[in-house]
Every structure is written in C-alpha cells, then in structure tokens.
C-alpha cells in the first residue's frame, strides 16, 4: 500500500520543501532572548558548539559559542543557518495517515499508534517477526540510538534493524576494527596542529567539514605539508603542497604502491612493526608488484607525484592521515581504509603527540550512533550481536532471556533487496531518507511500493515519507535533551532549547509509547533522556566503546569527555594507543593485505565516462533539512555536472547546456558546469536532491563484501549534449517568508 497517495507535485505543494527565510529585520526578540542555549550544530560530525537564542519557546537566532574548544565560535554556512529549521512552515505538527487520492489526513496520536501497532502485529503474525524491519539514522542522539537498538530487539523482536550509518562510515568502522579492534579516530583534531605531513584522502574537508579546515591551516602555519587525494581540485587542494587527482575507484592501488615504496626505500619503523603489529609481511607481499609505473597506469596520477607523496610520508617525524566517504563509499571501502592504516602502521606514527589517523565521521552522531546498537550486527558498547558473551551481558541489562535476543539482521541495502524478494513486508523508519540517500533509488522506490505497511517518524515530510501509511511528527535536534559523540570521539551534550510545536512529540516518547503498546512497557521505563543515558553507560561497560565513566555532569563540567572512559574517576581518552595495547585479540595492531580490485562497475564502450558523487558546502546529506533553508538553497540551487573542458569538447557540450546523463540504471538531464578542476575522464554530481535531480538514480550500489557499504563513488555513464540551455536559476517558487 505504499505507493504515493497523490502525485509527487501535490505532496510537495503541501509539505515542501518550501524555503524558509528569516524576516527582514530578524525574528522578534533576537536582541533580548529569554535564554541562550549552549548546544551543537545538528549537522555534520564536527558538532560545532553554538548558542541558540530562544524567545517565547521559539528559536530566534544563534550566537557563536566562543568557549567550546573544537570550534571556538567558528561555523560553516549550514551551522549559521541551522536555526532556520525551527519555525519552519513545513514542520509536521500532527500525526498523518495516508489516504488514497487525497494525500495525507490528520489523525489522532491514538489512532496512528493503534494502526501502527496492529499492522506490526498482523505482519509479524502472518510472516514472522523479521518481516517487520526498522531503519534508523545517526543524526539521532546516543540515547535515541541506544533506545532504538533496544526497541527493535525487545519490543519489535526483529533482527532486521539497520541504519544510515551503513551509507556512511561502516567501511571505516570495519577497517578500524580489523586493524585496532576499536572504531574511533585515534586523536583529537588538535593533534593536527604540529603534524609535519597531513594526508587527506577522499575527504572534501572544505565543503563537508569546513570548520576542520581551521586545524589544517593551523598546521600549515607551522609548516605542515598537505597532500590531498581527490579526483577534483577541491578548495582544500588548491593551496595544497601536493594534489593527487586520482581516478575514482583506484584508491587501494595508490596506497599499495606507496607502501611498497616505503618498504623499498626503507622508510619503515621496524621497531614498531616488529613489536607492536602483526601481518606486515603478508600485507607487503600483496603489493609487491605495485610499482610506481603500475600505479600511474591504474590511478591516473603521475608517478612523480606518487613518489613525492611517498617520500614526504616516509620521511616525516609526525603526521596525520584523514579519510572520509571518498575512499569508503566503494565496493572495496574496507580495503581502501586498511590501505591507509597500513601506511600509518608502517611508519609507526600513531599513539604519539601529533601523530594521528582517523576517518572523518560524516553525520552529526556518526560516531556515537555507530556504537550503541542500532546496527544489524551490533549491541551497545560496540558489542557483537553474534558473540554469546555479548548477547548474555546485554540481555541481562535489558532484562530479557538471551534466547529472545534476535540475531544478526540484514544491512540497509540488503533490506531493500529483501523487500523486493517479499521477505520483509513492513517497515518503520526514523531519521533516514533512503529514497535520496540509497543508491539506485528507482529500485529503492519500487521496494517501498511493495511494502504492506510503512510508518515514518520525521519532523519534515522527507521524500521517503511520501510512501508512508502513517507519518509520526517527531522532534528536531533542539527539542530533546541528549548526548552525541563527535568525530573526535568527544561525548557532548545536546540541549533542549524549545518544546515541540503543535502535536509533534519528542522521538523518544514516540518510541516509548510504541514499546508500551507492543506490550513491553515494563522494559522501557525512563523519565528523562539522562535515565536512558545511564542505562547506556551500564550497557556499554566493558565494551570497546565504554561510556560507563561519563555522566551528564561530567560532560557539562568539561565541555565533553572522550571515550573510552571506563570509570567515574577516569578523565576520558583524548589520544588512543599511547600504551600500544590494541583491542585486537593478540593485542597488536594489524596490517591487512589490500590488493587492488576493480570497482563494481567499470567504463566500457557504451558507458565510457566515470561519474563520481559527493556533497556541496551548503547542503547536508539527503537535504531534508537544508533544502528547506532559503539561503542555503540560494547558494547552490540545483545539481550541475562538473565536467572538464576536454571531455566537454569530446561530447560537444557547452557551458550551461543541458546534458543527458545515462547509466545502466536510468538517465536524466543536468546543466553542465565546465571546469578545469576535475579529471578529464570523470564527471561529478552532488547527491542531495531527489527524483530526476538525484545522483543516486545512477549509482550502482555494489556492496563491499565486509562492510556492506554500497558503492556510490564510481559509476559508468555516457553523456549527450541536448542543445538546450539551462534557464539561469530563478528565485524558487516555493518561498515561505515569515
């Protein structure tokens, strides 16, 4: 029943995205707010501190929070405009029920809950418990992430719970666990400051984590050399000491060749390798044929540049390696990650001041959210749902029989396939917009159309919610207390600034109410978010992501605590591995062989051009929030393909001409932006938009065998100039001015 009840256009007319602009002279009361609430940005993993100005239960503006140590008042455009998601005309205020031919009608909380619970029961009785699945997201707080993990296993009793972290940093998580047995960045970003060489791979830092640029520039002020690996000349790469414009999908070849170069030229830390690591020889054997010439051939980077990068990396005494989705969104995401880690381990530069390594977590709570169990194979404290001891411990915390604890479920993409196969019939989702964010989204849409029942919890009507039978109006970031864990591993407090408007309710209360109606109310007794956190602390105790020693008060007093923090008197851990005791079974850091493989889809005669995807600075993920904020949309109104003049000439494409991009999964038209700042064989398309403007209608989504992350960054396509020109972006029609 999850086909659209009315046309997409009608739904957009009613629910947006509409653009919110502040009134010309600002919201009333901005100059004399009732209170300034110290909290964090709701967007990326940097979790910049900021103060929200509140007047009469409305967020009326922001003020920089100068004291918060990571960003000291600095913000990116999304952070500045973030307060405008409040007071938004598109905000969902009432529970909604799908009505064929009409759209959605308002219903009572009682009716919407009753309908949802009866459908859950019906589907589970008819098809089995696992036929009802849940999808979650890591923009949610630690408390909610934990709660959802427990809700799905204890109240829904389904194994099929997964989250949008699956599209985010699972490759990094898997790679880190293989190498270190623990999944967190090894240092705070302050350690960047005195690193001699900084290698940034597949991370468009200046657009996706703008405030991190400060720490990189600080390092450069101290003389650090910056190496940027990216198919495009991103803003960070323009002034870099070395830019390696890599062919998408060939990252592991680069790291393999660099490792071989380090070994051949004896730029290794033998003492560290011999005493604190394992697997070096096998790893080196796997890349023994990776000469610079070979690497140039595969990656498209001049060998002199690879050599220079290897030399700089090899000779440095301090260094920091950072990567993000650019190397992780691949069918060999984990290989790419361990390839990076191998370079770090080979030179022994980890666990020391100014020697660091890590992934730059993308989502707001990408770090905390991937530790506490709303992932199909995971239990709180980054425990393993297939490990009997872990199951037993968490069952104890939750007060259930270990036998009732579901096993490992399907990953996000596999769930979509399972819906297609008819194995999953019902779904509830929160904080996830798969119709925009999953690859091959026409296939995803067909899956949603096959569901017998779909309930969505969200604060705006995201594109996926259009397919829902029931939409629950949930809460915004600033409407609930909680904690998140930043990309640095710093656990920080999110503070409630205002109450939910209208009939909207805090996400937590919606989940608790559903649990109660599913007959499990006795296991979900929490008065406050802090109660949930205190249970999380116990649940994480003894796990690798140990939060036991962290309390709300301790966070407040210290502006954040870095996990692991096993005891109440423990100060938290800013820098990992200073003791060189790794969390692997043998206590050593592991090298992992990462031989080069081709990406899931390669170019051929029919589809000769590589397409890669990414983000723009003014938009965030699937755009549910940022496509509704006027000024953010104005600065990047619609996706354009970035294409090199040589490639453009080859296809006869002129500036701003509409170009038909075709892949094996469909085709759509985009205006061309002809720029010399991209590889000559690659086009780039940002992914924040739905439908015909979406980049993910093209992406193939080949899964990484280990992390099950779908491949977003490599796709084969062909281009056709259409001879018509894009009308210059006029002011969007759907403007709602307060």
């Amino acid at each position: 029943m999850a086909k659209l009840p009315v046309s997409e256009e009608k739904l957009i007319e009613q629910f947006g995205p509409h653009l919110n602009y502040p009134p010309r002279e600002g919201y009333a009361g901005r100059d004399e707010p009732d209170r300034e609430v110290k909290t964090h940005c709701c967007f990326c993993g940097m979790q910049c501190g900021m103060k929200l100005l509140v007047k009469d239960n409305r967020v009326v503006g922001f003020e920089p929070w100068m004291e918060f140590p990571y960003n000291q008042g600095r913000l990116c455009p999304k952070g500045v405009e973030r307060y405008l998601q409040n007071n938004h005309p598109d905000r969902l205020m009432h529970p909604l029920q799908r009505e064929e031919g009409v759209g959605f009608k308002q219903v009572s909380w009682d009716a919407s809950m009753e309908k949802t619970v009866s459908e859950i029961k019906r589907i589970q009785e008819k098809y089995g418990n696992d036929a009802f699945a849940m999808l979650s997201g890591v923009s949610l707080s630690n408390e909610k992430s934990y709660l959802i993990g427990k809700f799905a296993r204890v109240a829904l009793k389904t194994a099929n719970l997964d989250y949008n972290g699956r599209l985010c940093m699972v490759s990094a998580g898997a790679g880190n666990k293989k190498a270190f047995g623990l999944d967190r960045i090894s240092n705070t970003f302050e350690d960047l400051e005195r690193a001699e060489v900084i290698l940034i791979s597949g991370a468009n830092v200046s657009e996706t984590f703008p405030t991190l640029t400060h720490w990189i520039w600080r390092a450069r002020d101290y003389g650090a050399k910056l190496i940027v690996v990216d198919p495009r000349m991103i803003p960070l790469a323009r002034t870099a000491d070395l830019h390696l414009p890599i062919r998408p999908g060939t990252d592991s070849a680069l790291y393999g060749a660099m490792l071989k170069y380090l070994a051949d030229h004896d730029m290794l830390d033998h003492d560290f390798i011999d005493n604190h690591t394992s697997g070096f020889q096998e790893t080196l054997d796997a890349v023994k044929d990776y000469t610079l010439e070979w690497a140039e051939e595969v990656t498209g980077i001049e060998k002199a540049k690879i050599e220079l990068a290897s030399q700089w990396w090899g000779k440095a005494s301090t260094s920091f390696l950072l990567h993000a989705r650019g190397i992780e969104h691949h069918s060999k995401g984990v290989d790419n990650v361990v390839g990076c880690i191998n370079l770090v381990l080979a030179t022994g530069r980890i666990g020391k001041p100014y020697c660091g390594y890590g992934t730059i977590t993308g989502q707001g709570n990408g770090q905390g959210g991937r530790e506490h169990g709303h992932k199909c194979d995971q239990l709180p404290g980054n425990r393993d749902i297939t490990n009997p001891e872990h199951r037993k411990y968490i069952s104890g915390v939750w007060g259930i029989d270990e036998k009732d604890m579901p096993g490992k479920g399907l990953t996000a993409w596999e769930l979509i396939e399972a819906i297609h196969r008819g194995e999953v019939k019902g779904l509830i989702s929160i904080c996830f917009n798969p119709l925009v964010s999953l690859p091959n989204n026409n296939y995803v849409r067909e899956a949603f159309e096959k569901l017998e029942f779909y309930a969505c919890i969200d604060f705006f009507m995201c594109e996926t919610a259009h397919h829902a039978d029931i939409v629950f109006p949930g809460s915004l970031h600033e409407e609930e207390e909680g904690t998140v864990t930043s990309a640095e591993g710093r656990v920080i407090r999110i503070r409630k600034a205002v109450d939910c408007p209208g009939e909207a309710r805090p996400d937590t209360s919606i989940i608790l109410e559903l649990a109660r109606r599913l007959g499990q109310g006795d296991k979900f007794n929490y008065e406050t978010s802090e109660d949930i956190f205190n249970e999380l602390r116990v649940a994480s105790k003894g796990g690798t992501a140990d939060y036991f020693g962290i309390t709300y008060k301790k966070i407040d007093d210290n502006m954040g605590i870095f996990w692991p923090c096993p005891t109440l008197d423990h100060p938290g851990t800013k820098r990992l591995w200073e003791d060189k005791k790794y969390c692997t079974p043998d206590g050593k850091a592991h090298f992992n062989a990462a031989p080069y493989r081709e990406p899931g889809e390669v170019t051929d005669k029919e589809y000769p051009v590589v397409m890669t995807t990414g983000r723009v600075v003014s938009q965030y993920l699937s755009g549910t929030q940022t496509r509704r904020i006027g000024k953010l949309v104005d600065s990047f109104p619609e996706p354009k393909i970035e294409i090199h003049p040589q490639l453009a000439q080859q296809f006869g494409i002129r500036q701003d001409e509409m170009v038909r991009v075709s892949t094996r999964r469909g085709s759509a038209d985009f205006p061309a932006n002809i720029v010399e700042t991209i590889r000559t064989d690659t086009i780039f398309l940002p992914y924040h938009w739905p439908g015909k403007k979406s980049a993910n209608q093209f992406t193939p989504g080949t899964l990484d065998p280990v992390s099950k992350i779908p491949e977003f960054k490599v796709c084969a396509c062909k281009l056709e100039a259409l001879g018509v020109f894009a009308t210059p972006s006029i002011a969007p029609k759907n403007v709602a001015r307060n």
Partner: protein
Amino acid sequence: MPVTNYKTNQEFFVDMQRCIGCKACEMACAECETNGHESMIHVNYIDRAVTIQTTVQVCMHCDDPACANVCPADAISKDEFGVVHTANTARCIGCSNCVMACPFGVPKKNEAYDLMMKCNMCYDRTSAGKKPMCATVCPTQALYYGTREEMAMMRPNSSPVNNFIFGNEKVSTKVNIMMPKGATELRVD
C-alpha cells in the same frame, strides 16, 4: 554615535588564500543587526572555469575613502575609530557612484531599496566589544579579528599590509591583508 566599548587594539586581518568559498561569512553577515538580513560581505569565484579559487572581501575602511568622496549626497561618513559607515539612509540617492569608485569593489547597491549598503565592521558588535560576525564564524580564519600581537604569534611568516597600489593611486586602509613577511604594500594592476 552612542557610548561604545569599541576596542581600538583589535584589528581586522584578511588572507583570501585561506578562503574556501564556503560563504559562512556571507550567511553570518546577514545576522548582523545593522543590515537587516542583507549580507554585506562578498565571496566570489575568481574564474570558476579554470580554478576553484575564491576571494572574500570586507570593507577595507580606507583612511581617505573613495566612496565617501564620490558620494554626491554626503551619505557616507567615517567615525573617530576609522570605521567607514554604510550610507545614511535618508541621504543616499542610490546613484552607485560609491559602488563603481571603490577600488576594492565593496559597496552594494540594493536596487529595491534604491540604497547603497556596505559593511560597517558589524558596528553593533564591535561597538559592544565583540568581534564581527564574519570573522567570528570564518572556519578558516581567512577573516580574523584580534590584536596585532595575536596575529604575529599565529602567523609569524606573514605581515599585515594596509597599503594598496592601484595604478597611480595608493590607498591606505584600516583593514589589513596578510602578505609574505616584510611586504609593505600590495600592487594591483
């Protein structure tokens, strides 16, 4: 002007090579109370077809402002701190002389208002002892507001320069641009 807490030891420093074009400054500028959600700062690509380079430009607050000189309506004034204020709304006749004469390309004409508006260094904030919005949020500190000593400590290999040569004209400003150490002027031609 009313009594202020304007800190005369704090200065504005710009280094556009640190700019990543994110436009945080542009968004934040609109939050400044003096310009009614209009942004007064400029971020633009130099030449997008060939480079990703962007530049960021605040009002340089010239010692002898060309904008004020060419204003036929005496609408632009400089205060005792050297801040060149935006056009007096009552006087400005919207002729755009200032827009076209400013050697830094700073003043903006708002066609609907028939009024020139420009950066006044976040006067509502600086006069209260705070830093301007743009320099507070700038994630790369391409825009920095603070003391000369702080700057010298942070970027010892650069010198603040406030003399600019445009052909035959030398323009001195209150705002500094960070240049290689020892430089005393920036020649634009």
